[in-house]
Every structure is written in C-alpha cells, then in structure tokens.
C-alpha cells in the first residue's frame, strides 16, 4: 500500500509587528505586581514573582492583591503603580 499524506490542520503563528519596541529589562529597579489573589491562582503568581525576582533582582517589590478576578483595583492602587519601574498586571483569571 502506498503511503498516505495527511495535511496538517495547524497553522503558522502570526507574530506581532516587529516594529513594536520591546520594553527594556529594568534590572535592580522597583517591580510591582497587581493580580487576582484568589486561592486558585496564587501558586501561579507566587511562581511568577519568584522567577522575576531571580531574573531582575529588583531592589524593591510591591504587591497589590485583588480579592478575585472580577474585583477592580481601586484607582489609588492603580495610581501607585506609577512609582514602579516595571508593573506586571494580571488580566482576568
């Protein structure tokens, strides 16, 4: 029996516009985290924070924890992010 060719249903990924300038990596600066603090996602955020600390070695970190996915952060909390060199904001869950 001759071989059967199967065409892949998976498409090539479209990459973002190469003209977009990546942000610089702020080593040694202040890093802020704003995220959903529900118990189901804490392991993810704790792991991410740990990884970022090991890579960026920030001198200072700031955590703003929302009670759940759909609880908006206060405007004061969002404003306070401006004091950081890099703010990592979790969207939805």
């Amino acid at each position, binding site marked *: 029996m001759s071989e059967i060719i199967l*065409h*892949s249903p998976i*498409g*090539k990924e479209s990459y973002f516009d190469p003209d977009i300038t990546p942000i610089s990596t702020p080593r040694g600066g202040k890093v802020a985290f704003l995220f959903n603090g529900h118990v189901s996602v804490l392991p993810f955020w704790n792991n991410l924070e740990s990884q970022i600390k090991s890579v960026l070695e920030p001198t200072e970190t700031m955590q703003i924890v929302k009670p759940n996915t759909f609880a908006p952060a206060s405007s004061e909390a969002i404003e306070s992010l401006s004091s950081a060199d890099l703010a990592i904001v979790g969207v*939805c869950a």
Partner: protein
Amino acid sequence: MDITDPVSVNNLEDAHELMYDLGWTDGLPVIPPTTKLVNAVLEHLNRDPQEIIGIVPPKNRIASIEKIAINCVMAGCKPQHVPVVIAALEGLLEDSFNLNGVQATTNCVAPLTIVSGPIVDELNFNYGDNVFGGGSRSSAVVGRAVRLILWNLGGGYPGEIDRATIGHPGKYTFCIAEDPHNNPWESIHEEMGFSKDTSCASVFACEAPHHIATGSGYILSATDILKVIADSTATAGSSTMNGGGQILLVIGPMTAQKLSSEGYNKERIRKELAQLAVKPVGLMKSNQFLNPGHPFHWASIVDANDDKAMVPALREPEKLLIAVAGGWGSGSGFCAVTHGWMEAGGHLQTREIKNP
C-alpha cells in the same frame, strides 16, 4: 518537523492514531485530511489556498483557506459546507466578538453557529426535531469544523489557554439552523439587515441550552407562556443575570405560532420578557460572583440597598436574541434558553455565506 507540515503514514489505522498523537483533535475521531479530500474542497472554493481569512486567537495562528479546508475535511465536511464555516469564522474574528476572551475564559461558553436562509433546506441543516442534538450531517460537521479551527488554529486547549472550568458539550460541535417554514417573524439574519433570500451564518458564544417546558399547546394565555420563559431565564447563578450581555431564546414552532396568533412579534416578546425576567436584589446579593464595583455588575443599574428592587436578566430588551427552531412535539411547547458571556464578548455576529 514543523507542526504545520504534512506527515505521511502507511495505512489508515496508523493515520487515526497519529492524528491523536499530534494533538489534531480534542478527543473525538476525525477524518484523515488526505490530499484528495483537501484538494476537493480547494477546487470547490476556487480561492487562493494561501488567502488569509484572519488570525485565530489566542494562539494567533493564520487561518488560510488551505488550513480551513483541512480542518473542514477532518470534521467531515463536504466541499459545499465549507463556505458556511468560513462565514462563521469571519463572524468569530470580528474584534468586538472578543474571540480571544471566549477561547480563554474560565466561563463555560462556546460559539454557537446559527444557520439561516435558503441554505438551510439546500444542505439539510437541522432546524426541527432534536435541533441541538444529532441527526443532520450538515449541522454536525459545520459545528465540528468551527471547533476544530478553534482547536488547531486558535490553540484553545483545555488546561492551557482554554481555562474553562466546567465547559459544555457544545465545545465538540454546536450548530443549529433557524426554521425557515414555521417562523412567524423575521429570522435573525433579516434582523441583522440581510434579505430573506440571503443565506447567513450567525455566531454567538453561549452556555449549553436550558430546556423550558412552556405547555404552550395546552394553555391559552401568551402571558403565561412568557412568565414561564421568564422564570427559566432569570436565575441567580447565570453569568448574564450578574453581568449583563445577550441571551438567546430558542422558541419551538408551536410556541412561536401561539405567541404570534396572540399578536406577539419579537419586539413585544423582548419588551415583556425584559420586565418579567427579574430576580430580587435580596437574592442577587447572595451571589458574590462579581464584585459590586465591577462595571458589568447589576448594582450599576439597580439600587443595591433595596432588597425588594428587581435585577433584570436583560439589561435592555434588545439583548434578547430570538430564534425559532426545534420540533413540534406534543403540547408541551418546548423552548430553550442559553445565556451569553456577560458584556465581555461573544456577542452575535452575522455574515453572509458566499458560495463560489
């Protein structure tokens, strides 16, 4: 090996297992996308195989005509089904549909395709008995092709980017047709501005359908029918009750005829259900799904301190989508309601089906 490249096997038995191993399907078996079958679709479409219909989120893989054809073959489509799938995909890729969110949300919603117009009869889509179930190849394979595209091009893999916690069976295939013969009102595509003679595919991200026994064959009052539908629509745990958005009401032909005979059109049904489908603030406060500060939360339109005030399931009457479909049944007058994904996205989009 590039995962987008063809692979070869020595026999069909190996083909089936290899497609599972490569992650080309979500668990259900698929048709091997051979050169002969894929070419048959491409010849029917008579379009450049590299023409891009769009980028499918969240993996952002390119939906070329060729890749769409391959997924359609795997779903069991005949070539003439593929323009329906393309129309549905065009609707899904409209920015305001927020397919990225629909694919990734923890909510259970899945895109439902609703086919309407002359193509319903031409390709035997199911608009009658068991409309959300099996029985029609066209309904089954179009819904299945949409799902495989969301899987293989969108990369909506459960536990990875698809974070749905419960999901629903419509994530395998989810396609119905509107009844072209027993609908006393305009079909959805006519409401969206297309002519009655135009065939269209509409998409709406929604939960699994909830069955409603209205008893419309045994009772006399349209008001009673709407009360029953309203109570089945307004439930404290539904996402739309908490966060607004669209709701699809599928009205069986018996109930549609009954309502129409009493002078009801879609506008009147929407208006009355918007008033009837409510729950008291005192109950809704028990649900902490959304924080009251959230922009979708009902507290933005109802006084949260008045426990007797009523929270509407439909923030505006126009949020109710109405399709006539399903069998005649007995006198039970079955209907179904399915809630959307709040104001977050998945809102109705309708596109013309363009045959070659």
